[in-house]
């Protein structure tokens, strides 16, 4: 069946409501929360700090270590086995790869920068919300960065390219394709691109175009969140 109207009534290129705030975890060097629709991510940055075990140390730069986790109560509330799953470990790795190109890790050889991303509530698009929060947290922590990183899930539902899929759309019975993309907003360079599903080149191009445009909007929200910390009186 053709997907002509989105479940929540949004336009095909419309994002869910977004809220972003920095400095939410006082203990951390830098932190941020990023909410998009019902998906709610919090990121906290600890470091640079000494890295143990020593064999993990890199001689010329800091190690960026991301820890992605969905809280036990974040989904439908069903019992979740404690500990990192294979999926968490993969998402941790792609988050690292999405952020490494922008952070100047060469400033701190042999140290580690730990980025913790926790999902308080999930409704799809979690790794992207996590990346948005993590980029904000790193900027909040005062790291030297080439640019921010904005991320969104674009894709195709039924036959229709859309942006910011929610869980209902991801699970669409007539087929959906999920394409998380992360972008450095200033140059449009892509730091994360994953594909979950089958797609033809034309739909892929349309979806990616929508995704990149959406990331520009997200970057505006991120910048406003960083500035807000210093313009409230």
């Amino acid at each position, binding site marked *: 069946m053709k997907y002509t109207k989105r479940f929540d009534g949004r336009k095909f290129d419309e994002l869910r409501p977004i809220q972003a705030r920095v400095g939410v975890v006082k203990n951390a*060097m*830098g932190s941020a929360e990023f909410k998009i629709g019902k998906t709610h991510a919090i990121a906290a940055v600890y*470091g*640079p*700090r*000494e890295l143990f075990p020593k064999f993990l140390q890199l001689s010329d730069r800091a190690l960026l270590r991301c820890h992605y986790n969905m809280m036990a109560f974040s989904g439908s509330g069903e019992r979740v086995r404690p500990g990192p799953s294979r999926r968490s470990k993969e998402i941790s790795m792609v988050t690292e790869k999405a952020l490494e190109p*922008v952070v*100047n890790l060469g400033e*701190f*050889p*042999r*140290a580690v920068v730990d980025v913790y991303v926790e999902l308080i509530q999930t409704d799809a698009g979690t790794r992207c919300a996590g990346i948005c929060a993590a980029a904000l947290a790193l*900027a*909040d*922590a*005062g*790291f*030297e*960065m*080439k*640019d*921010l990183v904005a991320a969104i899930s674009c894709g195709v539902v039924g036959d229709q390219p859309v942006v910011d899929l929610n869980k209902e759309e991801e699970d669409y019975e007539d087929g959906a394709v999920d394409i998380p993309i992360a972008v*450095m*907003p*200033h140059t449009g360079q892509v730091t994360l691109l994953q594909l979950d599903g089958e797609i033809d080149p034309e739909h892929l191009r349309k979806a990616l175009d929508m995704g990149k445009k959406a990331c520009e909007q997200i*970057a505006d929200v*991120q*910048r406003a969140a*960083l*500035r807000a910390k*210093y*313009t409230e*009186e």
Partner: protein
Amino acid sequence: MSTLLVQEKQVVIPGDVLAEGMEFLPGKGARRENDNVIATRVGIVSPNGHVIHIIPLSGGYSPRANDVVIGEIKDMSYSSWFVDIGYPYEASLSLKEASSEFIERGASLSDYFSIGDIVLIKVINVTKEGNIDLTMRTPELRKLRGGKIVTVASPKIPRVVGKLGSMITLIKEKTGCHIFAGQNGRVWIQGPSPAAEKLATEAIMLIDKKAHVSGLTAIVSSFLEKSKKE
């Protein structure tokens, strides 16, 4: 034609374009990309002629020679002490820099400094690998006894001290506390009473929160006046 796209004291975010054209040069906290100067840190624009600097609003401590900081003795070996100064790399105080007095051979090192001591200490040198050499041999450096330590982000320390020490003197006078602000963001407070120490702490946390605001001395002064009346 080169154009400056931001104003002095404007808050910028990494990736923001500060200027277009080759006439402007990137200073600290900025980089060049093709013809543009781009911010690399969250901070405040501080142009110096054609060089655009960004004063960071947050960030860890970056040690430089001659910084006086507050550290804690973490470990010791037979000829040196290892000090935590809030930096990810090792800071060490060698035996010959520990004291201006003569240290006898076979003396017990913990008589001088033992693990857990809080010290006012100075950075002599930062090596290429990032290790730090410290000294205690200048008269004002000493062990700090009693009091408490408050930590603020290191870029905010200049605001805690103020122009020519105006801010820190204000707090000292109004609370009666001894205060020392280390370059690493740690501030030591020792006062005649817990209430005085608490007031000084609150004043410093206020500066930490509002470090980017101008007219801060007046704000802190009225805060201290109001609190004293209560």
